[in-house]
């Protein structure tokens, strides 16, 4: 077993062990242990970068993991435990590990009693990282499901006043998606005789009919998760009711399961299906951008507004994927990471504002730059990043999704690109409206206490602020390692 394989297994084993250990320990110790486990996971995930092989394009093997581990899981059922990491999954794995660590660290500074929340975070991390690493369809499905329960518990136990209904809606809606995913997996596995994603990528072993059918199921399943308009309505409720760390994980990485799945499995395993459905997917993505932006423009609650902004941002990601071209998929990858970093930060801030003022109603807030200048400054930065200011992380994904759409050349795609660009202007509109309501104007009647930033908050937010700037200036950090794999995928779609 090579060092790389050991590290690969550690990225799953450490949080799993943490999730088991944390509930057994007393509260304070448990939270420190959990944070330590999350830290080690982040270290392990970063180390995956070392010793990666060449990333050059080789038609024989479209998926060339840097490190992979394969073992029999249930030999009787011909199930394999096959995980690996490459340039597409690596940034997402690191993002997951980072956000989990920041959430655990953030909980260190909270009142006692949140150790179960730490355990659930680690459990969710196992599922999310596992999904990104899985190279076997059935294993992918299993990890995809593992995420659901901890997230359900997080919302249903630690959430806001409407938590029960929101959690139930979240779990039932996404379970529906999971069922479709399972059907899709069976369709593909039955036709191809293998569940190995490496072997299946490129779609060579599947007939056209199977690919179209398989993609339909995959696309529906991932569209619920991503979410794609009009399958998005679980998201605002879940995000709004979830506790701060839950919202951060939901928006930051959970949504990426959908887009990642669409890239890795939808485009990878059933490329003909992806090419066939491109127009529909693209149209819905653009609809999501515009509808998301318009709803935000009329939104009156802080967390709900940020939640709906996710619908719009994921619309840009999905538009990139829909084009099926190398440029579009790259835009989707960087859009994923940027959205995770920026929206994660926004939810942290929304949580901090609600904690301090006890309300998220925009009408009741105001004048934050007078009462809490530090918080207002970071909120301003996050909002500006989220509206896609060039030079910050959010820009690249948006502009190159539009580039990819216009590159397709046909009038229909050009219109989609133009409408998406108009949607970007609307995005600016609602974020400025948000800032005007929350930070500008006369101070609101509600007290803001404490006005300053706690050290733990600064520690948890600083990496996100830094990453937003660094990725914005050097997008190659995210995309440099993905050139080869993305081009291999795009070849499959013919884009």
């Amino acid at each position, binding site marked *: 077993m090579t060092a790389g394989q050991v590290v690969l297994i550690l990225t799953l084993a450490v949080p799993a062990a943490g999730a088991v250990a944390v509930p057994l320990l007393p509260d304070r110790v448990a939270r420190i242990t959990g944070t330590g486990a999350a830290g080690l996971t982040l270290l392990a995930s970063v180390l995956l970068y070392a010793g990666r092989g060449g990333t050059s394009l080789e038609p024989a093997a479209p998926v060339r993991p840097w490190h992979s581990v394969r073992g029999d899981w249930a030999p009787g059922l011909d199930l394999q435990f096959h995980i690996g990491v490459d340039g597409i999954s690596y940034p997402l794995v690191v993002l997951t590990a980072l956000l989990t660590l920041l959430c655990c660290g953030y909980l260190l500074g909270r009142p006692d009693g949140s150790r179960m929340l730490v355990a659930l975070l680690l459990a969710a991390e196992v599922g999310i990282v596992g999904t990104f690493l899985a190279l076997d369809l059935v294993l992918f499905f299993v990890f995809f499901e593992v995420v659901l329960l901890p997230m359900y518990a997080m919302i249903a136990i630690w959430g806001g006043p409407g938590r029960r209904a929101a959690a139930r809606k979240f779990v039932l809606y996404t379970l529906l998606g999971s069922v479709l995913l399972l059907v899709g997996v069976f369709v593909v596995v039955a036709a191809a005789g293998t569940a190995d994603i490496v072997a299946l990528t490129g779609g060579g072993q599947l007939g056209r009919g199977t690919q179209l059918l398989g993609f339909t199921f995959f696309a529906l399943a991932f569209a619920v998760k991503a979410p794609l308009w009009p399958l998005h309505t679980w998201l605002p409720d879940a995000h709004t009711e979830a506790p701060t760390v839950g919202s951060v994980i939901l928006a930051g990485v959970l949504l990426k399961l959908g887009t990642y799945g669409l890239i890795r499995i939808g485009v990878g395993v059933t490329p003909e299906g992806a090419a066939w459905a491109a127009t529909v997917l693209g149209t819905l993505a653009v609809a999501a951008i515009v509808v998301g932006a318009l709803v935000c423009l009329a939104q009156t609650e802080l967390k709900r507004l940020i939640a709906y902004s996710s619908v719009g941002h994921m619309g840009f990601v999905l538009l990139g994927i829909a084009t099926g071209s190398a440029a579009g998929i790259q835009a989707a990858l960087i859009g994923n990471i940027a959205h995770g970093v920026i929206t994660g930060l926004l939810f942290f801030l929304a949580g901090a504002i609600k904690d301090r003022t006890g309300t998220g109603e925009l009408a009741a807030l105001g004048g934050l730059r007078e009462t809490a200048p530090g918080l207002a400054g970071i909120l301003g930065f996050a909002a500006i990043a989220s509206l896609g200011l060039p030079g910050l992380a959010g820009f690249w994904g948006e502009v190159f999704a539009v580039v990819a759409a216009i590159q397709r050349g046909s009038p229909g795609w050009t219109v989609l690109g133009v409408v998406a660009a108009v949607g970007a202007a609307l995005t*600016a509109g609602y974020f400025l409206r948000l800032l005007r309501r929350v930070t*500008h104007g*006369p101070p609101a009647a509600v007290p803001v206490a404490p006005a300053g930033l706690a050290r733990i908050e600064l520690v948890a937010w600083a990496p996100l602020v830094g990453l937003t700037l660094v990725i914005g200036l050097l997008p190659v950090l995210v995309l440099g390692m993905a050139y080869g794999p993305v081009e291999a995928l795009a070849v499959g779609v013919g884009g």
Partner: protein
Amino acid sequence: MLLPAVPFGAALAGLLLPPLRARAAAAVLGIAGAAAALLLACGLLVALDQPSEQSRQLVRFGHLAVDFGVRVDSAALLVAVAVGVVALAVQVYSVSYLDGDEGYPAYAAQVSLFTAAMLLVVVAGDLIVLLVGWEVMGICSYLLIAHDRRLPEAPGAAVKAFLVTRVGDVGFWLGVILLGVHTGSFRIADVLAAVTGGELSTATLTAAGLLLLAGVAGKSAQFPLHTWLPDAMAGPTPISALIHAATMVAAGVYVVFRLYPVFSYGDGVLPVLAVVAAVTMLLGALAATAADDIKRVLAWSTVSQLAYMVGALAVGATAAALFHLLTHAAFKALLFLAAGAVIHAVGSNLMSAMGGLRRPMPVTFWSMTIGLGALVGVPPLAGFWSKDAILHSASGGAGWAAGLVFAAGLATVVVTAWYATRLWLRTFFGLSRSEATAHDPPPLMAWPVVALAVPSGLLGFVALSDGFVDRLSTPVPADWTGAAARPDALPAQPVLADQALVHAGGFVLLPLAAAAVGIAAAWLVWQRDPATDPARALGRLRPVFEREFYLDGFQDVLVVRPVRALARAVRRADESVVDGTVEGTGRGTVSLGGLVARAHRAALPRAVVAVLAGALLAGLAATLGAAL
């Protein structure tokens, strides 16, 4: 490559400062950043004899590469020097102007960032890099306009500034993308080579040109996207100087200059530019005649003067356009900073609260006089030369577009002279209308004003020197590295061959006479009753001008309200229809489950009957199945 990096570094360091509340450090950083950028630009201007280009690949999307590329030539450097001068003046001035303002450290850092973004636009060698600078400027203007927390209208004005320019920027984005997709590169040199080499269809070029024009109109405050600029007055006065003189509004004109072939090779783009310029020119000048707020008068004059530059570009007089950009940068920065001194002294923006300030504020008075003279075009002040060059080029141009620009330009000279004289008389002459005892500003505010008076007065003579025109010339594609120019591929020969900035001859008398008419008219009206506003002479037009042609109202009714209504409707639809379906499915399932459950909760007799009936059915089925 260092040019934008220096103020950017200062900005970054400055933004990290606020927790320390270190005012002095922030001031030093801001001033040092601007000064270093200025020195660097001057040094390069002296040292550079050939245009040079450097680039490094930033990232690649598919086969489209984005380079961090800079390209400096003498025209870019001249603009960079102007940016540096104004930025430095503004930084120094702000130290005193924002004395006692808690937000100063963040403010100074934002000004540095603003400067860095403008310099990035000036030297960008890649369209995406240009876009980065372009939009960062937008956000800086937003932050700085909203700076003053005592003004209730500031946040709204800031949002308006960003959103109106952003609407134009949608076009700019799409124009850049169109060019990139069709030429396969975002490098400006490659794009221009493809354009002049005839690789792009005229339709594509026209579309790209018009789309870029939307962004230019937004940034350079041209009709119909000019509405944000007068409201942007809510920002601190030094910021107005920065926005109006050297950054932001100049960016639009500069980009047209930089990408000139894209506009000139398209079909019908330049005539559109000419119409926009003519409308904006007069509209801005007329709105300035009735405004009472001294900054608003200056703001409208910016709108109108920018239109001169755009008009010059429309008739192919690119050198004259850039020349006017430089002279305007000098005298408009001077005017705003001097107006700031007046406002500081009087404590009000309104001219109806000023008057008679000539004696208590001699330095400000004389600086302002030079600035206004340059604005009107009084020889030998800077504005005279550049405006004359534009009018002369327009008069010599062929076609209706040139005629339109010329006619509007000449009429605007009259109106400009009128409102400038009105401002001068209302502020500095007559009886004092303010309670406060006015005095000249403290040295840190006075120096920048006096320093800017020098180029406002003398910059025009540069035009007389040899080779200056060549330094301002549009980058001819042939001199772009690696570009194979084929100027004969397209019939258009858009750049005027004769770019000379100075003309001897009787033509000069025409704009001079126009200016004299305007000055005399304003003076005559004022003299009859020095206590009242000469704007009374406008009669029934006055409210129209004062309300700025009601364009804000149109914008509100045509754009803002429909979008808001649409947003509310979409939100309702999303919640009741899309989510309603989901919730309905849930409720439907639950009630269906309830029905089934009720059916199972039958009373004993009925349940027994049902069980027996079921057994009978099953038995029948089994027997039948066996029998068959």
